[in-house]
């Protein structure tokens, strides 16, 4: 690594940044010296998640909370086995948290800052698929281990392959494939579908996956209307009327955050839920917030076996309780996904370090991470796709039921789908896979 040349750069800078730069350099020097002295090694992790904008509330903040919890628990060694050793391969975690807002140019800049200025050892982050796509090539350029924990687009590892990049969250295809399978099984009489999705990549891709899956599973199903309101629109009166006029048997929406909540409130008031199956493919984060506002019978996904879909286990029980105790709210899927990323990192580091008693090199960690299988609160995650860099996991879909007595949201008729049933095999692109009628899918 070359040292940043502080003296030559400093004349270009106003005073405050100079001080910060000097501070950063000192930190870097001390980190370098510290690791030489072999006392309490540190692992500096850059965390990138939405702290502002519409995605902060439903995803960004719960993810940051989970990161906070995991850092503390890992450093103290309070995570249940097999993660009960202190630190990551003996190194204590330090974090730098960055807001994911501001667009891709900004995020590429901040990623470079994390690696080159803050000198982090690895980066965990990114909810927006656009940010993931933009940052991915930079991980190669800067040769820095980077974990995408949430973003959904399958394009990352389907269009390219990476050495330093891993994604511990399954990509978005399985959300809608599982949902379509669920509906095909539980609502066989349905003859028409309609879509209401936000007009951006996530909404468009979700609807395309769902529509193609439904058409593959139930050939001849008709499409009543495909609505794409603007992201953040907030008012859905006309869209709801269009749905009421069209009378679809199934309504698919991948809405999230305030848009989802606003839509549920407005749609419920106008009886959209009364005569049809409504699928909220990313609805899980809203259930604790909306409670009884979501009508019973609504079909909800959590983008994996997270949250209420996570099966009881020592890890899951610990995670739910620790999270609830600390933040007074149950963890939602973004929290689970952040926790999974941390556990994946810990598992990979410790596999690489096995027996050496030293913090492993990045190369060793990468080697250990590829095709890794590790236990998480959401069950087993396997780095099976993208030459061992892209995770797959099981998925679950359930029907919502609000337990009035307990004042708690619950799911009934939950169906679990094995990872191989809802994810394409290695080397097959998602869209082609769905169109082929899920060729090679292994369902039980």
């Amino acid at each position: 690594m070359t040292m940043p040349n502080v003296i030559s750069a400093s004349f270009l800078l106003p005073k405050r940044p100079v001080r910060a730069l000097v501070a950063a350099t000192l930190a870097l020097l001390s980190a370098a010296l510290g690791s030489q002295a072999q006392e309490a090694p540190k692992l500096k992790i850059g965390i990138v998640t939405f702290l502002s904008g519409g995605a902060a509330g439903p995803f960004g903040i719960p993810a940051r909370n989970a990161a906070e919890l995991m850092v503390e628990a890992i450093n103290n060694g309070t995570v249940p086995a097999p993660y009960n050793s202190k630190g990551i391969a003996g190194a204590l975690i330090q974090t730098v948290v960055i807001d994911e807002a501001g667009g891709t140019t900004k995020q590429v800049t901040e990623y470079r800052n994390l690696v080159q200025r803050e000198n982090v050892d690895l980066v965990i982050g990114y909810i927006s698929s656009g940010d993931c796509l933009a940052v991915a090539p930079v991980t190669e350029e800067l040769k820095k281990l980077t974990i995408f924990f949430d973003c959904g687009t399958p394009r990352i590892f389907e269009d390219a392959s990476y050495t330093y990049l891993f994604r511990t969250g399954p990509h978005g295809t399985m959300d809608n494939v599982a949902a379509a399978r669920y509906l095909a099984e539980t609502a066989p009489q349905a003859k028409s579908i309609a879509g209401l999705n936000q007009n951006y990549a996530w909404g468009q891709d979700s609807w395309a996956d769902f529509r193609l899956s439904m058409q593959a599973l139930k050939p001849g199903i008709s499409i009543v209307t495909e609505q794409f309101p603007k992201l953040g629109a907030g008012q859905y009166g006309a869209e709801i009327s269009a749905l009421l006029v069209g009378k679809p048997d199934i309504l698919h929406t991948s809405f999230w955050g305030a848009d989802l909540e606003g839509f549920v409130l407005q749609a419920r008031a106008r009886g959209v839920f009364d005569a049809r199956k409504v699928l909220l493919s990313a609805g899980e984060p809203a259930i604790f917030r909306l409670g009884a506002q979501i009508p019973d019978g609504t079909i909800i996904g959590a983008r994996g076996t997270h949250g209420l879909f996570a099966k009881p286990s020592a890890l899951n029980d610990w995670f739910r309780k620790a999270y609830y105790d600390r933040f007074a709210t149950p963890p939602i899927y973004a929290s689970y996904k952040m926790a999974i990323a941390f556990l994946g990192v810990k598992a990979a580091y410790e596999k690489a370090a096995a027996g050496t008693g030293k913090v492993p090199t990045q190369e060793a960690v990468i080697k250990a991470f590829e095709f890794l299988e590790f236990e998480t609160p959401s069950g087993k995650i396997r780095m099976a796709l993208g030459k061992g860099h892209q995770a797959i996991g099981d998925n679950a879909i359930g029907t919502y039921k609000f337990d009035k007595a307990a004042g708690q949201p619950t799911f009934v008729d939950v169906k679990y789908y094995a990872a191989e049933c809802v994810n394409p095999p290695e080397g097959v692109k998602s869209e082609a896979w769905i169109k082929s009628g899920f060729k090679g899918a292994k369902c039980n």
Partner: protein
Amino acid sequence: MRGPAVAIGLPFLLFCGLIAAGFLMPGWLRFITLIALAKGLVVLSLMLLMRAGLVSFGQGLYYGLGAYAAGLGVNLLKVTEALALLALGVAVAGAVAWVLGFLLTRYREIFFAMLSLAFSMILYGLLVKSSALGSTDGFNLPTPTFLGFAFAGTAARHALFVLTASVAFAAALLLHRYLGSTRGYLGEAIRENEIRVEYLGASVRGALHVKYVLSAALAGAGGALTAVATGHIDPDLAYWTTSGEFVFVAILSGTGSVAAPFLGSFVFEMIRTYAFAYSPNTWQMVVGATMLLVIIFMPGGLWSLFRRRPRLVTRS
């Protein structure tokens, strides 16, 4: 005489200094400077319009067009030469501006601002609708070649920096020359009194049209360079908040000199990156407050710090 020597020598020294600094800077700072230079071109393009009294809230249109032209140039036309991509961005932005210019040069003040915003949002909508272009996720660009040389890793970053700095300097110098010419100074005249300009025998719309196309070409260059530097493009480049940010930086910079946009752009990027790092939850507040303070205490923008004497009479 001292004047001409300074006029030629100082920019040249600055340029050499910047290139040298580019090689010595740490990578992150080089990247921020690079982005600041590329965005500085867009701010420069706004300055050109502002001098003629027009404020565009839709410069993201040309920033986005330049970026997408470069991006599609690599991925569709398989052009790999950075200079060719830059030319492509400039040409596409300029061509679109030439067409839209026939309509937009009829508008002034807030109507010009809003109509340009509308056009940028139509581009944004088209890009969001284009799933072939990745919708809001956008797509990636591979590292281009520079004058036929394929650099990799750090060498490519250096080459990109030299390219961007050269383009920025060339653009600034040419624009400086232009602004001092009759054609260029017509902007100020138009801002002050269009009727007189027409009655002196010059075409106001014609002059504005030329400025509008030039401005779009500069913004297109900024977009193409940003795209190549970031390696990724998405429709946010054309979103109105992006355009708003450019207007903000233009006001922050001041319109006193062609160097001001680059200085302002760099200061803005630094403020924002440190606000991101040290105040991740309230960085918008830091940016907003900075803006208010600059507007209140530095009416001429940051550039006023460099003016030797204050203006004696300000406009009412």
